[in-house]
């Protein structure tokens, strides 16, 4: 009773190619919806068919759920895979797909909507017994300083409609807070169409640890272990790994159990990620948010579990049972991913689009490279600067680091500026070698 035969891929770059390849291995046809700028990209060429859904700017192509659904229907697809970013967490796309008889490869629209509302997600987490940081919504008439005093400084001003590191401001004292709340409110209104903001205690010296979950349509929910994504710059992840280094077994058990409990409580379906912040001083952990999509860093989980998460997404979306239980999930070795970006580190990480005169990644049994680029390809200026994900998998953490360092050193790339040297120096840094760093580490280390 397989319903999915042809999948519409509503994304670009490496993740579009990743989805196309997973579909091919499952014997499914693919149609990639591209912008005009990506018409000649590898994902479009590898797919059975590509359709240009609009001009280069994402707001006129990749972010238009009406065009995506129309294109999926017009090419006789039966499912839409949204990848990450763009419309991947749009309840509107999920709902529109369903209304038109298409399977949305992701959670149900109401779950996406709840997860997108960071305030509601916090409340649901607390109700499910998952610890949340002290925090409070600030209504337009409220005095934020009163709430700030209750919560304690430093604290973050967060947009209810934000998430994924967007719409966050740090306030160190009441004076800063007063100015930031009204600014945050107007920015949130403009960026997310939702002016609600809330305050949340900021943990100084925190690690970012997230749990991968998978749920089928028949009530089974499992976790696939955790990932540590503490090497960040401006709330954007740079290096991720699985398992999280030096994590107390009791903490690991609590995180994974709470992630499953929370997923269960909100009726989660398909694959997702529950993010936590871990206070290194106290060892306590707190719920951050849930992501309703395949994550950029999913390959580290694939490496240590030996399971293909994109195939699993499609499988579950097609109504199939997970096919394994928690005790079947076993972990093997250590995997680290680093994100190679086209950016000029010396000039404030400015994006560096352009044409690659040279791009060759080394081959190694322990190395996986996810990219849609090759020599001669152009990195357009319209989208994010991710060029490739390099994933090293070895028996131990040090060996995985070595795999990546060697790969980055052997990598041939010319034509654009990249963060390669930064990645090499992070991987070679004593602090990183010693184990877990905190989310503020990278920005302090590169000053």
């Amino acid at each position, binding site marked *: 009773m397989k319903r999915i035969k042809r999948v519409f891929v509503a994304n670009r770059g490496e993740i579009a190619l990743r989805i196309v390849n997973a579909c091919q291995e499952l014997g499914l046809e693919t149609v990639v919806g591209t912008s005009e700028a990506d018409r000649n990209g590898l994902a479009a060429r590898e797919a059975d068919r590509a359709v240009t859904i609009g*001009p280069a700017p994402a707001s006129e*192509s990749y972010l238009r759920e009406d065009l995506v659904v129309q294109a999926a229907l*017009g090419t006789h697809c039966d499912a839409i895979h949204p990848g990450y970013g763009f419309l991947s967490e749009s309840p509107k796309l999920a709902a529109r797909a369903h209304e038109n008889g298409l399977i949305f490869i992701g959670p149900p629209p109401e779950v996406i909507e709840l997860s997108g509302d960071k305030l509601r997600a916090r409340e649901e987490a607390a109700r499910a017994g998952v610890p949340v940081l002290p925090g409070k919504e600030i209504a337009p008439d409220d005095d934020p300083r009163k709430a700030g005093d209750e919560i304690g400084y430093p604290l973050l001003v967060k947009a209810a409609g934000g998430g994924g590191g967007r719409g966050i401001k740090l306030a160190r004292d009441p004076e800063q807070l007063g100015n930031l709340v009204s600014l945050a409110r107007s920015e949130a209104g403009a960026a997310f169409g939702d002016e609600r903001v809330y305050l949340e205690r900021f943990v100084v010296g925190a690690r970012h640890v997230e749990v991968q979950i998978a749920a089928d349509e028949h009530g089974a929910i499992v976790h696939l272990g955790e990932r540590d994504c503490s090497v960040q710059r401006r709330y954007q992840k740079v290096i991720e790994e699985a398992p999280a280094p030096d994590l107390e077994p009791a903490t690991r058990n609590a995180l994974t159990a709470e992630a499953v409990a929370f997923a269960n409580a909100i009726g989660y379906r398909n694959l997702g990620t529950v993010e936590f912040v871990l206070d290194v001083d106290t060892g306590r952990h707190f719920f951050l948010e849930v992501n309703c999509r395949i994550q950029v860093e999913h390959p580290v989980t694939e490496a240590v579990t030996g399971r293909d998460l994109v195939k699993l997404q499609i499988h579950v979306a097609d109504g199939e049972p997970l096919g394994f239980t928690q005790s079947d999930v076993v972990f093997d070795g250590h995997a680290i991913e680093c994100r190679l970006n086209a950016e000029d580190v010396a000039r404030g990480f400015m994006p560096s689009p352009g044409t690659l005169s040279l791009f060759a990644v080394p081959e190694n049994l322990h190395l996986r490279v996810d990219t849609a680029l090759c020599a001669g390809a152009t990195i357009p200026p319209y989208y994010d600067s991710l060029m490739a994900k390099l994933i090293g998998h070895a028996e131990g953490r040090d060996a995985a680091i070595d795999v990546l360092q060697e790969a980055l050193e052997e990598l041939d790339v010319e034509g654009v500026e990249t963060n390669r040297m930064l990645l090499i120096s992070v991987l070679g840094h004593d602090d990183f070698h010693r184990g877990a760093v905190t989310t503020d580490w990278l920005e302090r280390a590169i000053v």
Partner: protein
Amino acid sequence: MPLSDDDVREILRIIDESDLAELQIDTEAFSLYVRKGGGDAEASGRPRVRSVTERGRTGQASGGPEASASPSAPATGDNDGLATITAPMLGTFYRAEAPGKPPFVDVGQRVEPDTIVCIIEVMKMMNSVTAGVSGTIVKVVPKNAELVEYGQPLFEVEPA
């Protein structure tokens, strides 16, 4: 928010009276791009209006093509001196206003820049497309009710 004829006239009047050479407005409901004619109107200065309007939910009259501001497809490229009218958006290509009605244009027919040549439907939104060029239709490229991609050739026109 459907854009009425009066809205379009008002926008054109504002542009006309202003010093602006071009204007782009993007909202949830519509996007509008207008460029004022320069010295060489034939080559570059064709005013172009792009808009998305919603036809009544049940599909009847109120927001029909005649009431909507028409996206004019950029006429590009000359092969054999022919101009090509390309799709200004992805959607389903309809040659006529409704099934059973005569097509907006047919081969051999003369069109002016503001002649409506087809409709492109995106999720029940009917977008009428204007020729954007003067001349005679020599070829209709897609089949009726077929999915057309952004930028795909729709008509070939012998310019005149």
